[in-house]
């Protein structure tokens, strides 16, 4: 049978410099204190934070010699935890934490839609590779593709500018894309972000 050292003895040991005694105390009461905190806040992360803050207070009080030993270590720690739980709710009342749900996430509204540096570099590389490939196209196809993609012109505008019918412009665009794909496949070029 394993003999359990009393809390009061462990507290004394800890005050006298035995750091191992604290570990025993924390592990011994971990579940009771954590469950107590969790039953109030119902959030694992907040519960973990309050548990940590509770023992930081315990450690400071014991090391400063401000703890009066009356053989009631656990109720004392529970009282600290209880006060910290109250502090947590007071703080949240003053400054409620907004949490998004499945339908609405605040970060989708305030989020930055710019690409990060890595993705921007990849995009620049792809754009530059693509412009080299476009240069390989026959002149008439290149002309239509540039007008459509880079200048965002409609096929009606392209037709007016090049002096060909809309159908011809559409056909040139189609062949431009087919030829681009062929070059990309032939040279095993990867153009994905």
């Amino acid at each position, binding site marked *: 049978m394993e003999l359990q050292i009393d809390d009061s003895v462990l507290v004394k040991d800890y005050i006298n410099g035995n*750091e191992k005694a*604290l570990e025993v105390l924390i592990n011994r009461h971990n*579940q009771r204190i954590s*469950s107590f905190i969790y039953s109030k806040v119902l959030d694992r992360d907040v519960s973990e934070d309050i*548990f940590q803050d509770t*023992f930081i207070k315990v450690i*400071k009080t014991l090391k400063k*010699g401000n703890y009066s030993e009356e053989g009631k270590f656990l109720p004392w720690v529970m009282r600290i935890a209880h006060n910290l739980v109250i502090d947590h709710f007071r703080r949240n009342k003053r400054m409620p934490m907004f949490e998004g749900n499945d339908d609405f996430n605040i970060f989708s509204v305030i989020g930055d839609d710019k690409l990060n540096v890595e993705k921007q570099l990849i995009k620049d590389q792809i754009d530059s590779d693509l412009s080299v490939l476009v240069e390989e196209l026959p002149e008439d196809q290149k002309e239509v593709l540039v007008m459509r993609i880079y200048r965002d012109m409609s096929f009606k505008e392209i037709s007016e500018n090049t002096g060909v019918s809309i159908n011809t412009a559409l056909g040139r665009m189609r062949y431009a894309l087919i030829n681009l794909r062929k070059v990309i496949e032939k040279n095993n070029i990867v153009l994905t972000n």
Partner: protein
Amino acid sequence: MEKIYSENPNKCKLAKASPETIKFLIGYSNSLQIIEHNNVQFENNLN
């Protein structure tokens, strides 16, 4: 009328602080020193 007790389950679930938190607390305790000077206590964290 019959009372359905299962509708209001006990919210007190068993929870445990993670080993990381305990490790942190032990580390914190090890590094914390209380220095007293002129009846004033100072916290010194030797990290």
